[in-house]
């Protein structure tokens, strides 16, 4: 957040309220979908997709990641990479089993 102009902020406030609305709608959507009792596979995909959209909204608008400094992006990118490495763990154990069978 660079400027502190009150007018700017008012514009932001409008965005915040719109994001709020979007989050509410998406929450209802996730719950509604879960009542369809889809295949586990699809259910996971959809639930994760919706959660990702919601999470991105929070991060981008509430946490102002839509315009942040480069340095923050770098450190988050690094974290994202290591996050991905962590996700190898479940894969690692199961890939072994698949290979052995």
């Amino acid at each position, binding site marked *: 957040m660079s400027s502190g102009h009150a007018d700017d902020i008012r514009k932001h406030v409008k965005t915040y309220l719109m994001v709020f609305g979007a989050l509410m709608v998406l929450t209802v959507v996730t719950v509604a979908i879960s009542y369809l009792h889809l295949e586990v596979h699809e259910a996971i995909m959809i639930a994760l997709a919706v959660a990702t959209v919601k999470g991105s909204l929070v991060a981008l608008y509430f946490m102002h990641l839509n315009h942040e400094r480069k*340095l923050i992006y770098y450190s988050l990118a690094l974290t994202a990479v290591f996050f991905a*490495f962590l996700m190898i*763990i479940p894969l690692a*154990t199961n*890939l072994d089993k698949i*290979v052995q069978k």
Partner: protein
Amino acid sequence: MDNVTTAGHAPAGAHAHGHAHAHDHEQSFVWKYVFSQDHKVIGIQYTITALLFLLFGFALMALMRWQLAYPMQPIPVIGGLLGMANAPGGIMLPEFYNQLGAMHGTIMVFLGVVPLAVGGFGNYVMPLMIGAPDMAFPKLNMASYWVYFIGGVVMLVSFFIPGGAAQSGWTSYPPLSVITATDGQTMWLIGMIFLITSSLLGSMNFIVTIIQLRTKGLHFFRLPFFVWAQFVTSFLLLLAFPPLEAAGVLQLMDKVAHTSFFLPSGLVVGNKVMAIAGGGNPLLWQHLFWFLAHPEVYVLILPAMGIVSEIIANNTRKPLWGYRVLIYAIIFLGFMSFVVWAHHMFMTGMGTTMNSFFQTTTMIISIPSVIILSALFLSLYGGSIRYNTPMLFALAFLPMFGIGGLTGLPLGLAPSDIHLHDTYYVIGHFHYVVAPGTIFALFAGIYYWFPKVTGRQMNEMLGKIHFVGSFIAINGIFFPMFIQGLHGVNRRLYDGGVQYAHAQPVLHWNMFMSMSAWTLMAFQIVFIVNFFWSIKGGKRVGPNPWNATTLEWTATTSPPLAHGNFETQPEVFRGPYEYSVPGRSTDYFPQNQRD
């Protein structure tokens, strides 16, 4: 000369000096020295605490080495003091041996080396090197020390609870760690959570300090290599520790709330089916543990490399060879250290795909180490080498780390690891890196920066005795481990392997190794004496006794407390190692000197 910053002497400094005092005297002793927020005091607190823990960890090992040299024989003199529960009749019980082993590993790594290398040296030296008045978050810095302190106390107290301390190795593999009935493991987990929290606070503080508080002109490629090492180390701590914290919480749940995250269904202990929900996975712990613990081993080595580089540049009186290459290598090393963790798990039933992946990454990660070491070797060429005590320790670091690193290669290749895994070869490998490697580098650092803290140099004669004795003794401990390991002698054996036929030809080494260990201990007395004596009786020296170039030496000796390191903000004009610059009258060209 460099009137910009040599405050105490410059007339301009007088005013600022008085100001600093006004700041100080409101603080009582407790706030100034106990709950201090000044990075230098905190650095000293870390250093002293960590040294005591190192000594304690060593003492545990000295006891174990008795049992290894003379299995099932009563420990002389102190055997009777250990208590009936640990050593009835002075003879150590296997439970107690396992406690000592687990706690030796834990204490050395988490309470000794890391707090000394990062908490101690990092805290004291790094802000001075970057020309900062203090760390970015002094309160967090203080909190980080005290959280570490609590963690240490929890670990120590665990020796005195019924059943004693944790006894499942520093790796704490479940199900063993969970089903062992004593509470030591619970204490270990709680202690670890404190230590992890402390490291997280510290590393965040370090990163912000290095990025934000660098003084004018000190851009990233003018930072001393030590600062780079601390920087990369902090990232490792920041991002690798949380997974272990998560794992610790899960194991704590298993211990306390009787969940079964790490316990599979159908466990049968003592021919009784365990009453647990089951469905857990023991390998999950190993993955999460090594996800931290591999980066952690680089946390042990990178600050050591940083210290050694500073001292080598200073005492060869020439720039480091390949400064930029060193930096790229250390960044790459830090990054890669996150993708090799499963090389500790080759024997857990790994398929070819994962196995190939982790072998390859392990070999890749050895390359930046080779580069760093080569660069340091090459730095010596053409130098004018001064053999003072810090330099001796720093030089010894190179081949010792070399041996440790080289023996990592057969471990990193899965087929040869089949023979070597969990043998003394592994113990030899990593001790060469951490003991004659890191510990020597830390000694070098203590001898090198001692004058900055106290205004006095440690005694050179005693220092050299300490060096020669330690160097010989420590090789006597760890080299025979490779011989034992190649014969297939396992680690973590209470009796050192006397029952096994294949161990017989190399068993006699145990006594030799133990003798060497006690000799090593004896030589540490020289160090301890030297350390305390020199505080009051060492040779008085000026603020820059080694004629060094980096910023910490432009500050006064034991710089004033309360966030004031420099009377005026130093400005930096050049890289960190401008020694023997052609055409200059002195052979060093400080970073903050205009020309």
